[in-house]
């Protein structure tokens, strides 16, 4: 006998006495831990970025650091990775002495650890960043004075934390060792690069690759536009409405997307809760 539909779909209704903002509230203990983690990540990222671009003036370096901090919760480690790559490209052949030997390995380890942490703790960073700085500090002070409301909910076994940390460290060291082995196998001297450039000069057919890519783009656009013309009237109307909304009512679109996102989060949380209750 199949279950009724009301049993299978999770109940999304909120109790009337519960305000909507309460969904995002976290108890003091979790916020405390999150704040400590966030501050430590920010300090490490700032220290790491200070090592980059040593020739740049302090004002530009501080500006870059502020930019990275502001985008950390939304973009994660993407900007950090891009800055490190850019710094490596600009340093090539000039200031690489700092990154050779054990100092270089340590730098790579720190960069990888920061990126790993930011990638794994995106949710926590976003939740902490939602509240204002004053609110976070107030919660931090309150949590140190008063005991947390529900300590059982966030008590994680020490063995689980230890195994998670051990797994992360093993993964980190494994990645660095493999990267070192691969870099050791690849030819990195400048003669190879110069030889490759000479080869391209001798054989001009390789230069035709640029033309080939442009032709590929042209054919791809032509084919996609021809297939675009096969759409039905309903599809055309929907596309026009969508484009009109996107161009003229960006604020309305943003509100609708935000609401959809919140609804999806609530649905996922309710599903997880019902699954847990079912088990």
């Amino acid at each position, binding site marked *: 006998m199949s279950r009724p539909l009301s049993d299978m779909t999770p109940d999304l209704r909120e109790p009337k006495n519960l305000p909507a903002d309460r969904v995002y509230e976290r108890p003091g203990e979790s916020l405390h831990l999150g704040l400590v983690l966030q501050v430590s990540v920010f300090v490490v990222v700032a220290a790491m970025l200070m090592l980059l671009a040593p020739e740049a003036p302090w004002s530009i370096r501080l500006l870059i650091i502020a930019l990275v901090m502001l985008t950390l919760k939304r973009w994660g480690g993407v900007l950090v990775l891009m800055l490190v790559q850019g710094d490596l490209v600009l340093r090539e052949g000039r200031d690489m002495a700092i990154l050779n030997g054990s100092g270089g390995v340590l730098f790579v380890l720190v960069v990888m650890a920061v990126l790993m942490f930011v990638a794994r703790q995106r949710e926590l960073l976003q939740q902490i960043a939602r509240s204002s700085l004053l609110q976070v500090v107030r919660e931090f002070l309150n949590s140190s004075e008063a005991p947390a409301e529900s300590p059982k909910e966030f008590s994680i076994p020490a063995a689980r934390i230890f195994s998670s940390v051990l797994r992360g460290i093993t993964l980190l060291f494994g990645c660095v060792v493999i990267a070192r082995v691969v870099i050791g196998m690849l030819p990195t001297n400048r003669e190879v690069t110069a030889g490759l*450039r000479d080869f391209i000069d001798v054989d001009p057919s390789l230069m035709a690759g640029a033309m080939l*890519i*442009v032709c590929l783009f042209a054919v791809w656009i032509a084919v996609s536009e021809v297939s675009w013309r096969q759409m039905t009237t309903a599809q*055309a109307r929907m596309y026009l409405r969508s484009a009109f909304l996107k161009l003229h009512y960006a604020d309305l679109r943003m509100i609708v997307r935000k609401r959809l996102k919140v609804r999806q989060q609530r649905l996922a949380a309710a599903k997880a809760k019902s699954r847990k209750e079912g088990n």
Partner: protein
Amino acid sequence: MFWIREVMGWALVAISLIVLRVGMNFAMNTTEPKIVEASVVLFAAMGVLRAGILLIRISTAARICRIDREGESKG
């Protein structure tokens, strides 16, 4: 009227492909490669390409809707 937009869209696409080719030439110059300049030019080319494709698609969708409406009014 929608034909003008479509022609303008195709013209923008053609311009973007030319700019793309110029950017590729910057990057593939073996004697003096200009990677940063090439990335700026390629970024601009992608912007022009998006604008052109948007114009083409909007004009196509508008013409389909118009044909349908004219058919309904005649029927």
